[in-house]
């Protein structure tokens, strides 16, 4: 009898451990996924309005992470080893960092649109794509020229003696650190704001109209240039915070934009490119898939898994989970 009860206890412990691990991976997935969703939104909106794959979007995200790094340094945090000397509260610092990186990347997005894409709006489709590749390369290596190729660590653990990592909410045996909660909540707040903007305002209506049929929208008196600039502002302004959120947890480097861009694009495709809820859903699905692969299968091949998902979607359901099939009009 006693052996049986021991066995029972052991299996109970195992089950709860498994549950804890699953929970842990789910939270990882949600964190990753909200970053991917924010990137995917930028891809998706630009594609919706311009039918252009903005390859430079991943690099806008990278620049956002670097702006955040600069702000954290400037606000008094001095690199590795040191602890945060809070002149102002941690919350305020995080808010300022997010806001400044949003403003910076929004400006960058506008500049990219104005100088690299607008002159090519009526060119053959391959031209803006090549231009986008050039922009992506230009930004990544300009950053390397200015700031070097070494990794930049926010050292977020030093902020308020590790408050962001040690404090948090307990779910069962698993503690969800404050940082992850901040990331997930702020990503959702941003997405909610975007959703309200697109569905409830006149500008949002103009965006949707432009995305539906650009020429018809122009004939209805919508200022297409303004709408496109606004789309780039919104999309890039979401990429900036995404970069900061990523870099709060892992060091930032000038090459981080490329793979992040690919993943954001994958998320947009999974959800159905051009659809805003699709990009959010796609980002979360991709984040979860990656977290579970890393947790249960192998971290080395998790990228491979992501790409296989994408190619599968591309081939068998190019309109994504939430998108509508694209009917080609001649």
């Amino acid at each position, binding site marked *: 009898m006693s052996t049986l009860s021991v066995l029972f206890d052991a299996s109970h412990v195992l089950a709860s451990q498994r549950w804890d691990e699953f929970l842990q991976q789910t939270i990882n997935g949600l964190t990753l996924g909200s970053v991917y969703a924010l990137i995917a939104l930028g891809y998706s909106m630009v594609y919706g309005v311009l039918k252009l*794959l903005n390859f430079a979007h991943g690099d806008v995200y990278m620049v956002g992470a670097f702006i955040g790094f600069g702000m954290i340094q400037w606000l008094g945090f001095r690199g590795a080893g040191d602890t945060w000397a809070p002149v102002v509260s941690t919350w305020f610092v995080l808010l300022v960092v997010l806001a400044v990186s949003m403003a910076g990347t929004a400006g960058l997005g506008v500049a990219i649109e104005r100088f690299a894409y607008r002159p090519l709006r009526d060119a053959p489709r391959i031209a803006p794509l090549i231009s986008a590749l050039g922009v992506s390369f*230009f930004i990544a290596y*300009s950053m*390397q020229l200015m700031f070097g190729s070494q990794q930049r660590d926010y050292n977020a653990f030093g902020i308020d003696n590790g408050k962001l990592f040690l404090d948090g909410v307990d779910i069962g045996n698993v503690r969800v650190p404050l940082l992850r909660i901040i990331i997930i909540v702020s990503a959702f707040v941003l997405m909610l704001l975007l959703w309200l903007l697109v569905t409830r305002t006149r500008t949002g209506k103009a965006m949707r109209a432009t995305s539906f049929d650009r020429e018809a929208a122009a004939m209805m008196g919508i200022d297409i240039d303004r709408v496109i600039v606004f789309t780039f502002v919104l999309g890039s302004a979401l990429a900036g915070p995404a970069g900061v959120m990523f870099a709060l947890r892992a060091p930032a480097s000038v090459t981080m934009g490329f793979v992040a861009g690919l993943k954001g694009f994958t998320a947009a495709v999974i959800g159905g490119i051009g659809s805003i809820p699709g990009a959010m859903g796609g980002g979360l699905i991709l984040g979860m898939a990656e977290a579970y692969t890393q947790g249960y299968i192998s971290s*080395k091949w998790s990228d491979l898994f992501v790409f296989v998902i994408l190619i599968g979607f*591309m081939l068998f359901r*190019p309109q994504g989970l939430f998108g509508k099939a694209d009917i080609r009009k001649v």
Partner: protein
Amino acid sequence: MSDDRLDPYDSGSLSAPLPGAAEAAAAEGATSPAVGRDEWVARHGANLAGRGGIVGTIQARLASVPWWAWLAVLVAIVALIPVGFESGYVRRVAFDTLIYMLLALGLNVVVGWGGLLDLGYIAFYGIGAYAYAMLSSSHFDVHLPSLVSIPLIVALGAVVGLLIGLPSWRLSGDYLAIVTLFFFQLFITITTNGDDVFGIDLTGGSNGISGVAASVDPLSFFGWELPQLTDAGAFNVAYIYVALVVFVIVFVALRFVNLSRTGRAWRSLREDPLAAEMMGMPINWLKLMAFSFGAAVAALTGTIFASLNAGVFPNTFQFPLLITVYAMVILGGAGSMGGVVLGAIIVNVLLEVLREPGDARYVFYVVVLAGLVAVLRFSVRLVVVLGGTILLGFAVHVITSVVSDRAVAGSPAGGGFLTGAVDRWVVLPDSLGAWAPISYVALVAAVLLLTTISGWWRIAALVPTLYLGAFVWENVMLAKPEPTRYILLGAILVTLMVARPAGILGERRVEIV
């Protein structure tokens, strides 16, 4: 074109030919457009070609030189390089340029002729190199002779290209680009992590296939080996000749393909896939063929590359290489074989020159000067800009040296006869610190602003921008050749797409709406 042809109703009956109309038609017969070709489009070429003056004459003369004469000149020059240059470095650059020329020719088939954006192109190059390293090395202890392995690998490249092209049946334009990009990423992931696939060391992981344990065989023909290094340990020039022969074969073969029915079909596919489909062309099959041809050329190039280097490394086959080859094709002119070869030569030589700060300095001033002459011609404005910039430089230098000694305490990087002038003209602080990124961003912003203003404002703004450019080049970019090279490639792509999508030798597109 005479007015009466434009408006026939003005001149009475249509059935009765007007006096003089026949002569007009006869006179026009020589230049009249071919059937099915828009008249204005047909004249467009003549308008462009009909440029007068010395430039026009030179252009006409150059255009009348047949293609094989160009090829012969190129072959002669490359063949003489090992004779003229003892330096292993120059020989190696010549070999690399040949490799790039081959890569550009292959990419031109997909992008220039087929009009398909293939971002996985370098993966085919990598597949060729890795396949050679697996079939002819000690890695798996398989040592196929080159004459067996190379045709096998070319066929493999063509088949993989066909498979990767398959999505083009369903996906248009940009989706295809992304699928090929992911295929490239897949290739990178597999090569970097492939040292333990279910316990088998497939690709050697991040160390690649190389070294003593897995050394890759040199090329061998009928049992006659071409060692990668000479007995003295120098670069074996035989590889230049092998690459040259392969280049000539590929060039001639692709030229015939381009002139064939398939070549014409590709071009119509590029111009308008829908119209091509309506005309009964098998567009899906044509796309696959374009992919397959490009992939086969890339794989062939990969074998030569792997055999010379006696190894393959995943770091070679990365995104920057893709951008480099794209920059070559776009700069030379997508669709023009001579153009992409020229593009490959220009870009690779430029990138090599940029490695050495002393040489890179000349590149900057020569390119800026040439650009100014090309845009402003020999005019008063050119004199104003040049004189203004030179005066501004000395003035700024004098003022700065009065204000602070440290601001001019630096010395120019590299050597060359310009260093003395640069030291007196450009402000060279002993260390820039935070001013490096600030000045670079200011330069980019200034150049972008220049494109939005015009007239004398632009001339006025050009002067400080040029000086700022020299400041950034001397202080920031010369010291870091690696990012500088790639920044230039990115800038080349964007600028060409915006300002001159046809590149140097490409045919300009004429849009008919």
